[in-house]
Every structure is written in C-alpha cells, then in structure tokens.
C-alpha cells in the first residue's frame, strides 16, 4: 500500500485500510523502543517541529521521543515562547517556520481547524496533535492499536466511551475510527455533555454508566474538559463523580476480559477510581507506550517511507 496523505489532520479523512496499514506499521516499530539502543537512522536529516499552542506533556513528549528514536532532529515551540504573544498571526508564524524548511510540523491548538489552516499554507507535512474539540488522530490510532493488541481484531468489539463527549477530541477521533470497523460504540454522559444529534455518527447514547458498561470489551473514560467549559455542564465535580466515576462494581457488568482505557490526564476519584486505574483491567500505561510506536509510524509514513 502506498501512503498518499501529506498530512494527518483527522481520522475522518482516513479509510479503514489506511488505519490498518498505519497500525501494522506501528507494530513493526514497537520493538525499537524495547532495545538497549533505541534508535534507528530512518529519519536522519529530517527536521520535526512540535508547535504547541496549548499545554501538553504526554503528547508532546511522545512525539518527541518518537521522532528522536527515528533520528530526526526535533525542535519544540510552545505558545508562551512563540511570536503569538507578540501579535503575529498563525499564518505568518507558519510561513516563517516553513522558510526554515522543516519536514514535519506537529501542531496542537485550542481552536478546531487550526491544523487545517496550517496544512493549506505549508508544503511540510502537518500532524494534528489535537485541535480544540475537533480531533486528536494519533490518540485514536494508539487507542485502536491498544485494542487490537489486546483483542486481536477490532471487528465485533463493543466499546463504551464515557465522559465529557461534547468537548472531547479524543471521543470524536475514536468514534470516527471505530465506526470504520464493525464495532458497537456507546457514548455515556449526562445529557449536557452529549452534543445534540450524536447518534448521527453511528453511536448509541445512554446516560447510565451501569447500562453503558454492560457486556463491553472496552471502556474508555474521559476527563472533564474544564478548559473548554466542561465544568459548567454539571452542578459539581462531586455530584458528577457520584454518578459517573468508574469503579470495580461497574467492571463486573462488563465482559470478563474488559480493558479500561484513559487518554490521560486522569482525574482520580472523578471519572475513574484508584482501584480501576491501577487494577488488572487497566491498560492506561500500555496506551502511553503504544503512543510512541504509533507516532513513529505516522512520522515515518508522512515522510514518504515504505515498509
């Protein structure tokens, strides 16, 4: 298969085959991170810029480690150190970056669509590392990778996604991705956290956590996006936790081999109990590990690599 996309802006634009191809590629990169010398020369001479307009620890470091393990040169720019504070527009900042001839720009932005704008301006590849409430494609890819790793195939899986769906780019990207496979996706939250018409994306909606987790292969918990107004959709975090915090009693209703996922950062005691987060069903740290392999695959394919 030939990879034809210059950019990775969202999952919605990918086909099922492309997603599987990407996951297979990631699989071939996973071993590199488990060696004593965690570096291959694949992207030597390539320049990768992480361009983060919004705070991030996990995603930025994951991308940076992925790039470095492929021998790319990496540069990190964050909003506080960038020229945006001096009043430069995104377009001008982007053009200035382009003039220094980077190969890949990885962007996180609080506003939906910002990476689309960047990709229209630039010849470099653009990777969306999360744009507002829109998409976070590499998160969905690493989530699918983790599901596939545990369940062998994605088809036939029953998945619950629980939490602040309306503000969640992780939920959107996962819904777009999972619905390209023969899966059953149930979204669960109070009505105020469910965007109107969500069913049109091919998912079921329930407001009961007990119902949502019943007979599921995968339970994905999301945090409340306070920075996007998530807290104003509920009376209090305390009340939310009393109805929507995943604890061990919920897991008994799920399938025996259920896995519990969370994109992080977790709010323990709010959407997930300590016992579940640290318990035997949790694959949360596997997700983080797999994130590096998936991002290596994305960087590799966008840079024109062939497996």
């Amino acid at each position: 298969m030939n990879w034809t996309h210059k950019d990775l802006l969202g999952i919605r634009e990918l086909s099922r085959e492309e997603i599987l191809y990407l996951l297979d590629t990631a699989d071939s990169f996973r071993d590199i991170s488990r060696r004593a010398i965690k570096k291959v020369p694949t992207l030597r001479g390539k320049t990768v810029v992480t361009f983060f307009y919004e705070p991030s620890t996990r995603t930025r470091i994951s991308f940076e480690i992925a790039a470095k393990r492929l021998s790319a040169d990496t540069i990190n720019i964050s909003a506080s150190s960038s020229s945006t504070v001096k009043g430069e527009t995104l377009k001008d900042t982007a053009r200035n970056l382009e003039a220094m001839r980077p190969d890949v720009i990885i962007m996180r932005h609080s506003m939906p669509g910002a990476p689309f704008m960047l990709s229209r301006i630039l010849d470099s590849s653009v990777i969306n590392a999360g744009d507002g409430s829109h998409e976070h494609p590499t998160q969905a890819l690493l989530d699918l990778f983790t599901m596939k790793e545990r369940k062998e195939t994605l088809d036939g899986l029953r998945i619950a996604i629980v939490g602040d769906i309306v503000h969640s780019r992780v939920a959107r990207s996962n819904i777009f991705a999972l619905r390209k496979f023969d899966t059953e996706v149930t979204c669960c939250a109070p009505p105020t956290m469910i965007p109107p018409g969500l069913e049109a994306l091919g998912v079921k909606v329930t407001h009961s956590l007990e119902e949502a987790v019943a007979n599921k292969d995968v339970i994905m918990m999301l945090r409340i996006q306070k920075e996007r107004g998530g807290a104003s959709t509920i009376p209090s975090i305390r009340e939310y936790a009393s109805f929507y915090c995943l604890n061990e009693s919920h897991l008994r209703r799920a399938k025996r081999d259920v896995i519990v996922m969370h994109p992080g950062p977790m709010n323990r005691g709010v959407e997930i109990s300590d016992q579940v987060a640290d318990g035997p069903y949790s694959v949360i740290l596997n997700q983080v590990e797999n994130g590096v392999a998936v991002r290596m695959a994305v960087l590799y394919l966008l840079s024109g690599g062939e497996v």
Partner: protein
Amino acid sequence: MILIKKGRLLDPMTDRDEVLDVLISGDSIAKIDKNIPGTDADQVINASGLIVAPGLIDVHTHLREPGYEWKETIKTGTMAAARGGFTTVVCMANTDPVNDNKSVTEYIMKKARTEGVVRVLPCGAITKGLKGEDLSEMGEMQQAGAVAVSDDGRSVRNSRLFLTALEYARLFRLAVICHCEDETLSGGVVHEGFASLLTGLDAVPSIAEEIMVQRDIAIARYAGSPVHITHVSTAGSVEIIRGEKERYTKVTCDTCPHYFTLSDEATLTYDTNAKVNPPLRSRADVAAIKEGLRDGTIDIIATDHAPHDAVSKDVEFDLASSGISGLETAFALSLALVHEGVLDLKGLLTKMTANPARLLSLPHGALAAGKPADLIVFSEDAEWTVDKNTFYSKGRNTPFQGLKLRGKNLVTIMGGKIVYSGP
C-alpha cells in the same frame, strides 16, 4: 438624455411587464412608451433581449466608513453596489464612531454625496454605542438623513428599552430593523448541527435566533409598531414569522442570498469565508428559507454585505471576523431562485425593489414618468464566474469564489447617470 430601447420592462410596483422604451431626462424618467424616437437622446442603450427593472434596494449593507476604511469605504462600497445592480443601500451603524448621533449621520451623508456612486441611506443605532443601554437621538438622525434604526450585530437585550425604541422610532417614521440573537445562547461560531458535530467548532443553536424573533414581534405587536426582522436564517424563524403575520400585519423580514444558497456544510473545511452571523444553517433550514420566499413570508432579499480585509479572515476560524462581501454576487445568486422555479422574475424583483422601497417609504423602486431614474438593465441568462479579485469592494471575503452564476447586471443608472456599465 438617455434612451433605453426595446428592453423588457419589468416593474413590480406599477405591475408592468412588456417591451417598452424608457427615456431619461435629467435625474428622472421622462417617458415610458413604445418606440420612442432616439433623435433627442445623447445616448441610446440597446436593451433588446435584456430586462429593464428598477434599481435594486439593499436594506442591509455595511460600508465600514467611518472608522474601518481599510475594509471598505463609502466610495468602494457604492461602486460594488452599482456593479451588483443596487442603486440604493442602507448602511448599518456599526462604524467607528457608531452612527448614533446626527454628526455621524451627516458625515456619512456628506461622504456619500461627494464620493458615493449610488444612494446611501444611513441606518442609525437604536442605542448609543450599540450598547443596549440608552436610546440614541433618532429624531436628529432622521432629520440628517437616516431612514431606519438598528443595533445590527446584536439584539437590544433589555425588553423595556426595545419597547421604548419601537414606540419612539414611530414618531419619526423610522423603520426598526432587528438583528435577532439571544447572546446567552449564542457563544459559538457555527450552526449547531451535523457539521458542528464533525468539526468540533463551538455551535449556536437555531433557538438563539428564534427566541428573539418571537420576542421582538411580541413587543412590536404590543406597541402597535412596525418591525422588520433582518437576515432570517432558520426554519423556526420562518415558521414564527409566518404565523405572526396572520395576526399582525406590521411584521416584515428579509433574508440574504447565503442563507438560501449555502448550508453549514460549507464550514466543514474550516473556510473562514463561510463564517457569518447568523451562521449558515442546515439544508432543512435552507429549504425552509426558500419556501418562506416562495410563499411571501419573507418580504425582502438583503445582502448583509460585510466586507473584511484579508487578515480578518486569514486566521483561525474562531478568531475570524464574521461576514460575506455580498453586493456583487447577491443579484445573480438570487436569480438562481428564478432559474430553480422558487420565484418568478417579478416576484424576485418585488423582494429587491418594491418591498424594500415600501419598508423605508422611498420614492424609488418604481419605473414611471416623473420618478427618479434609478434603474438597471440585466441579462437573466448571461453566465459568469465569481472572481473576487475583480470585486470593486475592498472585501474579497466570499465563499462563492469560482462559482458559476447565471444572470448578470449590465447597466446601472442612478439619478439619471450611468454609474455602472459592464460586459
């Protein structure tokens, strides 16, 4: 003297539709008749195969002057109007300073006289500074030339103040033009619907508009005052207005070409040229707007011409200014309604000439001897492609770039002068 020969004269106000010649003398129409000899005419326009109609009247334009001259000026905005077939435009008050007192109104009138190429009729602010707190001096603005008042860009949130404004505006026969938006519901940048579900952009539900449409009409009915709802964009608003018109005859409304041409799908690519307020709605809303136009619920087609400089649009969608530069595409986009069979030509022209003239009690918008010579000659079928780089407007912000349109204004005559003539 200008003689327009053999055009199909179509004038809704006088209910005329036949091939006739029009003789213009000075600033008014001297004669309309069959076979007027061209002996005295300085210029003869052969309108054979073309349509002669009253100049279009736009009840909702932003000319940006004073204060935002880099976006548009009275000169460039009226040049765009002339090209688009408009001989009269009503300019909204959200300039800097706001047009909320007679000195600003006088400034606009003076600029329009010296630099404008079509008639400019100012719309004053309802409240000082558009702040929704104190009434602006409507009487003095009216004496200076204002024909309407509006806090366009927002609703007058305080219902008591809005009631007072409606009652007071009646004293000076000023049309009250209402932008309907409940700001406590409208913190988004696109319509709330399937497209916003996909893009993750913050969304505005249709009810943000509909609640205020209902409120504004309720207050107007209580006051017994006329009220005009501008840029109607939702199926719900059309339904509310349709019902209210049965009970109360002093309600009028307009919509804009983008609301019957584009749906929120235009925002799927984060194209900031498709960012407009109220936002582009669903396909079902588009169909309801067309039905409202067809059955007469919607009286007027306005442009809401909102020119912006490139930088205001060349940013993240959330940060981009709202608005579409519409004067040069509005007529052709509206003619699509005729080609689609939603309206007949007379019905369309009624919504762009006679009805706006009635709303504002203007002597224009009719073709008859003695009337001001404001008229256009257009082709119903000529095809052309929108190219923003040829716009006379400074605002190149159009979501219609590259669109092939059918129907084109060819000649615009305002006050007996040819102010636009194009291929």
